[in-house]
């Protein structure tokens, strides 16, 4: 591993990184699909929130008396799911923001290095969210398996 040697006086960030035409098209394509996934994720998060609100509204009217005692637990579960939906929307917005930066890298020569740096910053938070939701999903699956086996 070569240790980067940085002069104390760093040059200005590069306005242009000499990507080949092929690489520019690839980066523009990456930005396009990142943008698509970001918007889909935001849409899915909003749909999830609306569904939770609808379920909460309907359940408040028709829940049988036998389940009233568990309404606190159900409410907490609803809040957790709502929080998850907000996180999903946030992740989608980060993905679209990173996509916009990478698109600028491919289409302009203004500040390639700066756009890369800010795009990577957005992607860092996006993957952090992905890892967190991934661990939560695994934990919930394991608990379902354990309690399912115990119930059987």
């Amino acid at each position: 591993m070569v240790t980067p040697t940085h002069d104390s006086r760093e040059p200005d960030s590069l306005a242009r990184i000499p990507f080949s035409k092929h690489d520019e098209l690839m980066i523009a394509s990456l930005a396009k699909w990142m943008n698509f996934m970001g918007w889909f994720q935001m849409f899915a998060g909003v749909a999830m929130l609306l569904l939770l609100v609808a379920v909460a509204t309907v359940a408040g009217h028709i829940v049988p008396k036998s389940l009233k005692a568990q309404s606190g637990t159900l409410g907490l579960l609803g809040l957790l799911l709502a929080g998850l939906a907000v996180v999903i929307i946030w992740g989608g917005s980060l993905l679209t923001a990173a996509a916009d930066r990478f698109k600028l890298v491919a289409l302009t020569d203004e500040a390639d290095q700066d756009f890369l740096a800010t795009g990577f910053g957005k992607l860092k938070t996006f993957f952090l969210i992905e890892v967190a939701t991934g661990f939560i999903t695994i934990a919930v699956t394991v608990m379902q398996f354990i309690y399912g086996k115990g119930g059987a």
Partner: protein
Amino acid sequence: MMTDQPSKTPGPTEPSLARIPFTKQDEATIVTMSMWMRLAGFISCFTGLVTILSGLTNLNLLANVIAGLLAVIMGLWLVSGAGSLKLVATTDTADQDHLVAGFQKLRNVFLLKSILVLIYLIIMFAVVVIVPFVLWIWRHLKG
């Protein structure tokens, strides 16, 4: 966003940059990003393997194997891409080439995810809209 500047017109093939002068802070961001990306890749591989194995215990073997394989492939791309992008921040040998390699892996991941989402949306549209409409037409034609 297009500017007044002329569109990028790369001249004759230019040598790839050995070093992109990222700041220390930006390099740290890239290293951290590659770490989370690698972890996301491992999680994807893990869930893919679990999906494949769980398919062996139920009737959805084919669906589980396909879904699991796709998750493993995406996970491997993420891990590989993370490795390339980490080299951008930790070395000065071929920053631009490592950047392109990392971006290619990322593009593969998001392209595959987008294709799966589009397939899902088409199926949902068919199930929710087209099939009931066709059944309704059929019932009316039958009288």
